[in-house]
């Protein structure tokens, strides 16, 4: 239980910190870089290394490649949906999660299974 609470607090702090840094910058394309900051990764990997060891964390980082590639495609789809189809941000970002799950799982199945 303590482990879960610790993960929650450290993950929340990392994510909030990067989001606040992103809020500081203009133009929006530059601020958006921080939307893909390794905040969850840093928190998770630091805790995983301490608990499960470095080889376990390295395997997580390898699979993260599929997640990051999926995030790239996801972000492009969100941009197109809001710019071209004029979808509101909430609808676009939630609908495009299908793209993230599909790409991430597809790449994982093809390369890292």
């Amino acid at each position, binding site marked *: 239980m303590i*482990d*879960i609470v610790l*993960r*929650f*607090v*450290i*993950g*929340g702090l990392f*994510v*909030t910190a990067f*989001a606040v840094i992103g809020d500081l910058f*203009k*133009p*929006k*394309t*530059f*601020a*958006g*870089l921080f*939307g*893909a*900051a390794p*905040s*969850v*990764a*840093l*928190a*998770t*990997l*630091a*805790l995983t*290394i301490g608990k499960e060891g*470095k080889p376990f964390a390295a*395997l*997580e*980082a*390898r*699979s*993260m*490649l*599929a*997640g*990051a*590639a999926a*995030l*790239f495609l*996801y972000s492009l789809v*969100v*941009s197109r949906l*809001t710019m071209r189809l*004029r979808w*509101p*941000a*909430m609808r676009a*970002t*939630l609908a495009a*999660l299908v793209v993230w799950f599909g790409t*991430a799982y597809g790449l*994982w199945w093809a390369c*890292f299974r």
Partner: protein
Amino acid sequence: MKVEVHTEGLRRTKWHECALRFFLGGAITVIAGLIAKKFGPAMGGLFLAFPAIFPASATLVEKHEREKKEEKGLQGMERGKQAAAQDAVGAAMGSLGLLVFAVLVWLLLPAYKAVWVLIGAGIAWLMASCGIWALRQSRRRIFRDFRRDWGPARN
């Protein structure tokens, strides 16, 4: 286009919006840990790049831009969507930096001290993301200049 630091974005961010980001960030970190525990690190690792706070962040960007325009008596809806789209383009470039981060951690972690690998990979993410952003900016400038100098003449 120059990168500028503005505190206005921070002033517009309310406490409950920060709390939402904190909650979503904490939740996805816990979920990634639980998935890695149950299904192994290969599956858990996917969620290290899950767009957990992206829907909330993009919605806030859209809302703040809309409010800014409406305070000036203008229609802010379109500007809000445009800002959210630009934020997403930035995230796409950041995710390419995330690929660099993941490769470095995967390859260097077994051989080197963990703390230095994580710090180094974090710096590499920042440099790669900023580099890609700068490259995109300069390419856009080159194309704009080319169109101005060599494109069809305007009457």
